[in-house]
């Protein structure tokens, strides 16, 4: 383990900042010695969760922030994503039907599903005017 004690990042609600999220996650996972495949899964889950907040939490045209923080304990890495936008529980979104043909398949609707598939635990709560989404992945 290295000496970084607190990992956190704040981004505006603009998807142009997603590469900053990727860089942040790569720095964190590298510091914990997490392998590239698991890093890609974490990166993808975090991008989907954060983009969902960027696109939908705040009314269009208004500025808002998204706070991402990371903790590591008992062989698991846990990401907490907070925003002060409209209350929204992504764990209540129904899964897409992944067995449909190309013609039947709707465009979109995969983001939240990927978050659930890629992480081991996904939980949501609304506290003190904050949406708080917690994503946990076992590493060891």
């Amino acid at each position, binding site marked *: 383990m290295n000496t970084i004690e607190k990992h956190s990042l704040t981004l505006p609600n603009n*998807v*142009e*900042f*997603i*590469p900053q999220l*990727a860089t942040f996650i790569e720095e964190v996972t590298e510091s914990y010695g997490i392998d*590239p*495949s698991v890093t*890609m*899964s974490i*990166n*993808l889950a975090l*991008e*989907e969760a954060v*983009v969902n907040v960027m696109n939908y939490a705040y009314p269009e045209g208004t500025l808002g922030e998204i706070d991402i923080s990371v903790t590591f304990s008992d062989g698991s890495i846990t990401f907490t994503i907070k925003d002060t936008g409209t209350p929204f529980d992504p764990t209540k979104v129904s899964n*897409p039907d*992944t*067995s*449909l*043909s*190309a*013609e039947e*398949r709707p*465009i*979109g609707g*995969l*983001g939240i*599903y*990927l978050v659930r*598939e*890629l992480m081991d635990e996904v939980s949501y709560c609304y506290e003190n005017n904050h949406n708080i989404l917690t994503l946990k992945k076992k590493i060891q």
Partner: protein
Amino acid sequence: MNTTIKEQNGELYAVLDGRLDTAAAAQTEKEMQPLFNSEGKNVVLDCNALQYISSSGLRLFLGVLKSVKAKGAHVYITGMSDDIRNVFAMTGFTNLFEFR
């Protein structure tokens, strides 16, 4: 992220190079326009240099597939990494595309 498209042996051959994340998706969609206007030609998506894809990129792949299939042609994927193939498997996309 960089997308280059050339016509080769009567097919449209697209090389996708880089990270296809949400930030890159709008520009990539513009660069992919020739694939949406494929006029019945088969399309090959060369993913050898594709490092990453998120749902915004999957949405573009599905859009190209729908458009090309509607004209009676095929979309073939070549050179996809195991990690990206895993994302395709998870989302049912492996069954939608043909792989070369």
